[in-house]
């Protein structure tokens, strides 16, 4: 974990209100600084000052390229992400990274992985899919968006394997929810990985209950490093909470109550 000033290398609008930002770590040693970042981990981004936007925004690592540059993809959904979207090439972005515990990719030997993402939950699944595909896992992805204008990275996911896009209004791909798609299809997989809004995660884990899987959970955060107890999620079957920013955001599908 470190706090660092990243340099904005690219700022691209890739869908409606959706920004893809490529960030360079200055003076980074790719092996030690970035080599141990895992898919599912996030950056805790300082979007403003304490009198303009006091809380940092958690944004997932969407990709890391061969040079150690980090890609994030975020939706402009409020004041802080709007401020962040205005950072142009060359400007600095202060972030804590890498935050949290990601998907246990190193311990998984899978034939087929099913990725189920919704909206702003799609970005971390790209880095996950790319990493798993790199170690020979077959990737099937089901990605849900509100409408055609919000769809991003469809080609990139298609490069990883079979990819199905679902939109709420049917304006692109299949119409409905990702869970409708899960019901209709008989997909053979070893492990599922899901990230998206809590209602979607709830639906997905219900639908796939009993199957091995991992989910990435969202919650409003304070410190992002495990010190303030802002971001907790109840543990299933016992009294107690886990910290999403430290123990998560990735949990085994049956580990926490949504």
């Amino acid at each position, binding site marked *: 974990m470190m706090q660092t000033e990243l340099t904005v290398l690219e700022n691209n609008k890739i869908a409606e209100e959706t920004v893809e930002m490529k960030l360079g770590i200055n003076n980074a040693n790719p092996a030690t600084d970035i080599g141990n970042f895992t898919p599912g981990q996030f950056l805790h981004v*300082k979007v403003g000052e304490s009198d303009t936007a006091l809380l940092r925004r958690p944004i997932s690592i969407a990709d890391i390229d061969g040079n150690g540059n980090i890609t994030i993809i975020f939706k402009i959904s409020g004041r802080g992400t709007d401020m962040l979207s205005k950072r142009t090439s060359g400007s600095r972005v202060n972030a804590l990274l890498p935050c949290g515990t990601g998907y246990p990719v190193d311990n998984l030997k899978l034939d087929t992985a099913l990725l189920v993402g919704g909206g702003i939950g799609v970005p971390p699944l790209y880095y996950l899919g790319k990493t798993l595909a790199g170690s020979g896992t077959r990737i099937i992805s089901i990605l849900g968006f509100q409408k055609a204008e919000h769809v991003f990275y469809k080609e990139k996911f298609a490069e990883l394997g079979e990819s199905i896009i679902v939109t709420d209004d049917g304006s692109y791909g299949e119409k409905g929810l990702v869970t409708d798609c899960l019901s209709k299809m008989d997909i053979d997989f070893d492990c599922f990985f899901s990230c998206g809004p809590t209602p979607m995660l709830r639906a997905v884990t219900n639908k796939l209950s009993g199957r091995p899987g991992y989910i990435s959970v969202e919650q*409003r955060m*304070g410190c992002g490093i*495990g010190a*303030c*107890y802002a971001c*907790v*999620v109840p543990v299933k079957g016992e009294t107690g909470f886990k910290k999403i920013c430290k123990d998560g955001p990735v949990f085994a599908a049956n580990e926490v109550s949504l």
Partner: protein
Amino acid sequence: MISLETKLPGLHLKNPIMPASGCFGFGREFSELYDLNKLGAVVIKAATQDPRYGNQTPRVAETAAGMLNAIGLQNPGVETICTDELPFLSQFKTPVIANVAGSTIEEYASVAKRLDESGLIQALELNISCPNVKEGGIQFGKDPVLAAEVTAQVKRTVAVPVYVKLSPNTADIVQMAKAVEGAGADGLSMINTLTGMQIDLSSKKPLLANQTGGLSGPAIKPIAIRMIYEVRQHSGLPIIGMGGISTAEDVLEFLLAGANAVAVGTANIHDPFACVNIINRLPQLLEKYGFQNMEEAVGGGIRNEANISGS
């Protein structure tokens, strides 16, 4: 360079800067970022008798120049804190101040006793002011008689010095300060958060699961300064000041208002290096404003008042 050394009852501090309770956990996470030996002291998250699981989420919200929190005193309970957390902190040469909360006077006393007996803390901070739990906490902070009782009871029970953390959610902060001073408090800690609320426009309901939360951050600094300024004129107790500090300039303002040392809370959430940055900058700032030492600054802003030494 101006020495930042600060002496408070029971505490010999390298500098007057410490992280405020609840914004620093038990120090582990921050120790991965910097050497905790740099800090004047560490104030740990509130301890209660039994583990507390806290409130439902969401627990935090952003506000103009601040934030609301309603954590609900989540902590592993005093026993686990004494066996698992305090030994970790004892590797640093930094005094530890344990923040204590409870629902009854007996709970305060028994938690305080356990912490004192651990031998791993140098002072206690009685949190009689947490606005985020349904029972206990706040009424002690609003009622001078109860506040004095809990202070006296804890004082009878422990050997370490006792700082009482005052709530700004009261009509008369001076009366509260005098009440706990009369009951034997060794120092004051002020201020805790101010009760606030945010309504979410989409759900049309309070955003925090607890509905209300405690406001902290730069937004509350003028209130903290005013309250410390007032209390300093009526109490000789040392004051650990807090509320919205994020820069060395803020610290100097607190010292001038009458604080002897300060705690930095919310700023750690915005910038985890806030305390270290302040410590590094404070000596040159004191120099810039013509101070020879820390003591000169303390209470230096109070007008028409002769000799207020604060110790």
